[in-house]
């Protein structure tokens, strides 16, 4: 993409709603399905290694924010860290797994919260990797000279889908009142928040900027069925008439088609597919593990990480563990927002130096996708 002008991340922002919530208190915020604690919760938390998270709702169900308002806050923070304001922005791209409204797009909702005059906007909806889809639009818009200052944001308000009323009275709850594992695990894995970065056609005069060297996204949906999804039952998820809307919202709820679910058996194969894509990039020279100074890998579970480490070592593709940076344990898994929340934390930790390379990896189990972004740290220009 050398025919595009260089593009730099000049500001980062992360917005985590409410208080930091520990493992002991989290179920009070989500509510107990069938009025009793989840039998799976402790095991899920041991498996995913998450010790804390934030929710945009209160134990009584009241909302503190919307997905769009959290994204708007993250964009304001990112603009602030770039030394810019809303008036400087001429392009806004936004990503999420599920927006506040079914339509229109998430970017419109974020623009609505941000306020101000006309903007170019683009909405991206997928799971975690949607963050890099939106980032790629912003990167190309600035690179092409169509925009001088673009913000890209990603946000999740997952907890609202995890309240008991999303399951009770539906087929995902069995006769004994137990929620299916495919749905319950995600309740103990995903949480709320938003992140954003600002991209410009030149580095900022003071402080560090991050040159976006490239962004690659690889979907393997042509070969894999949905692995994490909402909007169909497990049995109907690949049927053309399987989507929730076929028989209307009441029937969809009764069949358990509205909740987020994860296919754990398929996930094992999808994990290997992600590793395969990474190893292919190492083999082709697109990624040189030895030239990566900081790795931000959005892994959704501790065990996933152990598996990745094992294979990477034996194939000489490992980036040494001291170079890994994550906020998963303390901030939770915030889906698409996680990569920006981690990047913001990395920049605030004063751990990066000019010339260093940061590799962001965003695997998405949704339908077997993985995204990569390579950044190079650039020093002050004056």
């Amino acid at each position: 993409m050398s025919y595009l002008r260089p593009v730099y991340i000049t500001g980062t922002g992360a917005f985590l709603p409410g208080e930091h919530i520990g493992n002991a208190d989290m179920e009070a915020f989500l509510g107990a399905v069938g009025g009793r604690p989840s039998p799976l919760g402790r095991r899920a938390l041991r498996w995913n290694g998450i010790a804390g998270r934030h929710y945009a709702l209160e134990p009584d169900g009241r909302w503190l924010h919307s997905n769009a308002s959290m994204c708007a806050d993250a964009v304001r923070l990112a603009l602030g860290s770039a030394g810019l304001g809303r008036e400087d922005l001429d392009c806004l791209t936004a990503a999420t797994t599920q927006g506040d409204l079914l339509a229109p797009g998430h970017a419109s909702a974020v623009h609505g919260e941000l306020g101000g005059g006309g903007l170019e906007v683009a909405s991206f909806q997928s799971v975690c990797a949607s963050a890099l889809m939106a980032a790629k639009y912003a990167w190309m818009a600035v690179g092409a000279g169509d925009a001088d200052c673009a913000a890209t944001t990603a946000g999740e308000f997952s907890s609202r889908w995890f309240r008991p009323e999303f399951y009770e009275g539906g087929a995902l709850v069995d006769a004994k009142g137990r929620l299916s594992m495919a749905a319950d695990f995600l309740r103990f894995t995903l949480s709320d928040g938003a992140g954003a970065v600002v991209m410009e056609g030149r580095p900022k005069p003071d402080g560090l900027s991050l040159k976006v060297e490239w962004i690659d996204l690889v979907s393997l949906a042509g070969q894999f069925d949905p692995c994490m999804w909402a909007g169909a039952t497990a049995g109907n998820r690949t049927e053309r008439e399987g989507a929730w809307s076929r028989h209307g919202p009441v029937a969809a709820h009764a069949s358990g088609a509205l909740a987020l679910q994860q296919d754990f058996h398929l996930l094992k194969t999808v994990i290997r597919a992600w590793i395969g894509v990474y190893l292919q990039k190492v083999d082709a020279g697109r990624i040189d593990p030895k030239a990566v100074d900081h790795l931000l890998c959005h892994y959704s579970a501790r065990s996933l990480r152990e598996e990745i480490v094992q294979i990477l070592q034996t194939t000489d593709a490992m980036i040494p563990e001291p170079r890994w940076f994550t906020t998963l344990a303390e901030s939770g898994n915030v889906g698409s927002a996680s990569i920006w929340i981690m990047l913001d934390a990395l920049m605030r930790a004063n751990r990066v130096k000019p010339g260093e390379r940061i590799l962001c990896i965003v695997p998405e189990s949704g339908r077997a996708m993985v995204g990569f972004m390579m950044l190079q740290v650039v020093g002050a220009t004056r």
Partner: protein
Amino acid sequence: MNHMQGLIPEAVPDAAVSDVLRKLAVVWTGFEARLEATPLIRKLTRGRFELADYHAFLIQLRQQVQDGALWMSRAASNIDVAHLELRSTLMRHAVAEHRDFRLLEADFVASGGALETIQAGRKNIGSEALSAWMFHQASIPNPFGLLGAMFIIEGLGSIKAAEWGRRVRERLSLPPQAVSFLLYHGENDSEHMQTFAEMLAPVATCPATAARIVRCAEVTARLYALQIEEIVA
């Protein structure tokens, strides 16, 4: 949750071996994704798998398993004295597996099929191509490329067999003795894979051999997938 454990041996220090293993892992994951999209495996993962599909699967597996020990024996006979260890390993491997096709026959019968039916089964187009390819490779002096083929086939045993066996059992409500080959391989093939690194180490340092191993894995993976694609009950 170490799903790759069976596929990649632990602690491999040699850079040339790591290089081959990385390329083989890429071939493997591409193969696995291709299998996911075959009609037979789609039926299995989407809950549409019938007993007739299982029987058609067993018939093709039997062809390939029966040939497996034979091409391994032929390959062993083509390995020179400079690589005696490799020859021994292949011969042990062939001995360990050369009766396994009987397990498939027993599974076929235990799941309601007639012994004559599986014994009279013929190779589909993919099985024909795979078999011809394997015997051709095994007939070459020092056929080290076959290590790549073994990586793919052993990977199926250590990674896919148990998962497929579990799904077949669940879907068709079969007793374990009707799915013994898939379940047995899932339990035992991780040991086979441990010997893989030992076999790879003495030959992978030659760039031409390393390239041959990877190429052989690619062709074997494609032909194996063709065999699965061609199974239509």
